[in-house]
């Protein structure tokens, strides 16, 4: 069985076959022998040593815990839509997202304002802690989609900018 997983911008291809005890997975030139210990819990043998890793596939994501390191691999869906969920994508400097779901405590800018890079834009609160979100680039505030006290998620930008052209 062949699988593809997206890690950051790379696609990792794997080939999996059953064995007497579990499965053997080839990734590039590496081969891993994997036995399931309990649902979600796997023993992986590689180069003669073993480690235990937990993994749950949920929706289009594979969640992993590798000695405390948490990873999420995206599983490409047939229709090719690999929306990873969490908003703020690299390079999307013209949109200000909440870093986590929560409540807008205070907007620090209004539409039309000129803002500089790193300028504080909005304060969001979740779990009783405040977080200040700064602008990733200089520009003019084009649109503000929420007001103080609104609940926000991580998908819809709070503030949209017209970026200054770099000369």
């Amino acid at each position, binding site marked *: *069985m062949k*699988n593809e*997983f997206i*890690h*950051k911008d*790379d696609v*990792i291809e*794997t080939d*999996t076959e*059953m064995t007497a005890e*579990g*499965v053997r*997975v080839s*990734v*590039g030139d*590496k081969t*891993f022998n*994997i036995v*399931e210990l*309990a*649902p*979600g*819990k*796997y023993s*992986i043998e*590689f180069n003669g040593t073993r480690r235990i*890793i*937990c*993994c*749950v*596939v*949920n*929706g289009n994501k*594979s*969640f*992993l*815990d*590798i*000695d*405390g*390191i*948490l*990873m999420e*691999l995206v*599983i490409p869906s047939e229709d090719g839509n690999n929306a990873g969920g969490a908003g703020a994508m690299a390079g999307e400097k013209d949109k200000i997202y909440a*870093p*986590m*779901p*929560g409540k807008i*405590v*205070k907007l620090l800018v209004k539409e039309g304002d000129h803002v500089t890079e790193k300028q504080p834009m909005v*304060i969001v*609160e*979740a*779990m*009783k*802690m*405040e*977080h200040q979100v700064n602008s990733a680039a200089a520009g003019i505030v084009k649109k503000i989609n929420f007001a103080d006290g609104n609940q926000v998620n991580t998908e819809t930008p709070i503030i949209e900018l017209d970026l200054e052209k770099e000369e």
Partner: protein
Amino acid sequence: MAEKYFKKILVANRGEIAMRIINACRLLGIPTLAVYSTADKEAVHARSADQAVEIGPPPPNESYLSIPRIIEAAKEYGCDAIHPGYGFLAENPRLPEACIKAGITFVGPPPDAMRLLGNKVESRIKMADAGVPLIPGMKSAGVDLQEFKEAAEKAGYPVLIKAAAGGGGKGMRVVKAPQELKSAVEAAMREAKNAFGDDTVYLEKYIENPRHIEFQVLADTHGHTIHLFERECSIQRRHQKIIEETPSTALNPELRARMGSAAVKVAEAAGYVNAGTVEFLLDKNGGFYFLEMNTRVQVEHPVTEMVTGVDLVVEQIRIAAGEPISEYVRNATQRGHSIECRIYAEDGEDNFLPSSGKILYYEEPVGPGIRVDSGVTGGTVVGVDYDPILAKLIVHAPNREMAINKMINALKDYRILGIKTSRRFMIDVLEHQEFHAGRTYTNFIELHMKDRKVDIDEVSDLAAAVSSAAMMRKARANVSGGRRERQPSPWQTIGPWEIGMRIGK
């Protein structure tokens, strides 16, 4: 059976501390009543008490902070005592006052002691008179910005803005330069208002790179006031403790004795009863300054329990019932070394941003000298309404090296999927040579973890391989009689009974 001190105790809290209290009551044979908000219908604490009652909607001030509803519930269910845990109403003197009116025992200090110590400004004055060393700063709460400006100039930057009613880093801001002062004061006041319903803040000199050393204190109604040694809580991020240990590598017997008696002096000066914690800053020259006294059971109380063999929550209940502190507790000594790591729902790889969602896989570490105080399990939905603490991992070992090693292994064995935690971050702290050397100051993380990077690319092939195994299991399951698309992990409780609906879609 063990003695029964109360007919029934209402646990006015949630999460791991509610579970800790329920456990202690069960150990003493005392029935418990849990209270929960509509957000916590399926929370572990609501399910674990002998009885449970819903007291309001998710916002704390309509449920866990609502004194009338809690008193009402206590009366309705015949509770003769209330344990507040930490946070929420734990340090609000109006709760013990309401308890007195209702003829219910409050498991904690008398309201006057709480009110005095809860007010950082008044308590500073009181303790100054009692001869307890203090940090230079404002004598009283600040009213206008000008006042803060002057006090800051006088003490000299950097300065610290603190909520008078504060605790846990909330409503706290370090100000390094004059131009930051205004926004810092405003932010601190907002947070204070939110967290404690009181926006009074004040200013004091910020002592750089101190150690945070606190002493556990117990006082009964028979005139005994004792301390159960120190806890070092210097490892903090955004002014909140994440790793605590005892004994502290910074104390020798002589300094321990001096700080211990200062702690007892603070409790006595305040007319304190029950369990409390006296916090000090310890500077590089062994000078220590009284910070505040926390009038509740502390998040990090387990490390004291591990090295002294005392059950602090049981002692709280015994003292509240009018019992004297037992011989066993008065003779307690420190044995071995204990460390606690706080398991928060936060992203250790991204500024400790809170992380919410459903726990898809949950497995606790086990083994000799490993203890987990947890308020969650598989399937628990972690929301945004309350503190992000999920659990506490505590270890005990004969010495510090072994305790560190045991904790590192336990953090690796503590498996939580679905929400972010900072387990890996804490592993890296524990493995750092400066931590092993015992050079733990409050700026440790700033100083040593700043450039920390986790190379997940290095394990991405491994991750893909394991994911493939998981996919294979799923595929086979589907082939063979169409089992549910989602492969449940051992603890992934599909909200009871909803399976049908899920698959209906």
